[in-house]
């Protein structure tokens, strides 16, 4: 059983919250009543506890101060898991640009902006940086604009084996306007509601 020394608990909390190793004189600010020897005892107690009570972390003396670090034996598993920053969701605008490129590739910026009605240089750059779009060449047209296409990572993320597996746009277009049947050729009357 660990003797619950309040100072040792404070030490653990402080070392945990600090963004860098803390030296003895920095610890002094935490508790005006404690001497350096008191802090040395607390450090020894905490270190002892981590060693004997089966923890995943240890107390390390680093750069003239003290720091809690994870045990090296777990380093590989943690590195493999790569808990980086939160994966970010794509914005609505980014999704729209992706959708246009997916169906029209290779496609230039002008055409994308024509369809969406707003500039999208920043979105295109971001999608390139994140590996979802790539430059597929240049158009033969005026100014030889850059053409964009989707990457294999894009297919992987949406879970498709091939671009041909994308839902057909015709189907989507029909799904969008379910109440409008094809008017008979040359018929002057307005579109008839579709039969249920």
């Amino acid at each position: 059983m660990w003797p619950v020394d309040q100072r040792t608990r404070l030490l653990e909390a402080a070392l945990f919250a600090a963004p860098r190793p803390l030296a003895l004189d920095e610890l002094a600010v935490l508790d005006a009543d404690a001497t350096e020897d008191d802090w040395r005892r607390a450090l020894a107690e905490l270190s002892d506890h981590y060693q004997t009570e089966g923890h995943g972390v240890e107390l390390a003396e680093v750069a003239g101060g003290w720091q809690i670090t994870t045990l090296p034996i777990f380093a590989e598993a943690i590195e493999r898991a790569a808990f980086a920053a939160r994966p970010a969701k794509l914005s609505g605008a980014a999704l729209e640009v992706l959708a246009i490129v997916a169906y029209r590739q290779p496609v230039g910026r002008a055409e994308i902006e024509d369809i969406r009605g707003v500039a999208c240089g920043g979105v295109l750059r971001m999608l390139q940086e994140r590996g979802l779009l790539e430059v597929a060449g240049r158009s033969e047209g005026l100014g030889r604009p850059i053409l964009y296409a989707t990457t294999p990572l894009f297919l992987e993320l949406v879970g498709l084996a091939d671009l041909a597996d994308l839902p057909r746009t015709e189907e989507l277009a029909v799904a969008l306007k379910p109440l409008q049947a094809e008017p008979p050729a040359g018929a002057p009357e307005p579109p008839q509601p579709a039969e249920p």
Partner: protein
Amino acid sequence: MIAGPTPHSPEPGTPATPPAMPGGAATGARPGAALAEPAGAPAEGGFVVSLERYSGPLDLLLSLIKREEIDIWDIPIARIADQFLQAIHVLGLDEAAEYLEMAARLLRIKAQMLLPRRGDEEPWEDPRHELVRRLLEYQQIREITDWLAAAARRRAECYVRGWIPAAPDVPAPPPVLDLTELVEAVERVLAMMPDPVIMRVMPRPLNVEGATRRVLDLLAERERFGWRDLLGERPTIVDVLSCLVSLLELARAGTLTLAQRRPFTPFDVARGPAYQAA
């Protein structure tokens, strides 16, 4: 919040309470305000006003109602309207559009309340109803805001790890994306797609031969002439291009020379070494 003297005397018709701004009881129940950083240090002297104290006209109105211990279901609109006008004047908010809009709304309701009601068979719509609805809705949001502020304060007492071991150089995680989202985006795109405008491109061949004839005619007349002399009053783009091509062709053959005296000025055309009078 007012500090210092409030340069106001009670107006006739208003209750005897001083026109100081609601503070005290109303502000005590606002932990959210405690969390707010002041927009800037208030000036010393005179009366000090913190606009941050009220997050909007609804907030100010609610504070007035609370201070006056008014039943929200039966707001004495004439009294509250007067106090509101007075408050925004003292707070220096009488140029803020949002507060003025609320003042106008209150005065309109006040006027509507004065209209004689029609008979009992006609259901009477209380002109205060919409205002009450908005006040209650806002009060609910304020309560949630206070709850969130308290939760955030509690959370701020728990420090997370300050030192995160540098991640090995792992590329940023792939963004979250699924097919449903993409399909929704396609639908949005389809909806916003403009109807295609079909334009036919008409071939308009350059008339270099005609232009060459015109150049040679001019050279026969004069030893040198300006670029503008070659083109008519309002040349079409095809005329310009035709003339340009013919001039370049003739210059290459040595029939004429082209000279520009200064940058960005029209150039002169002159007979060249190979010029032969036709």
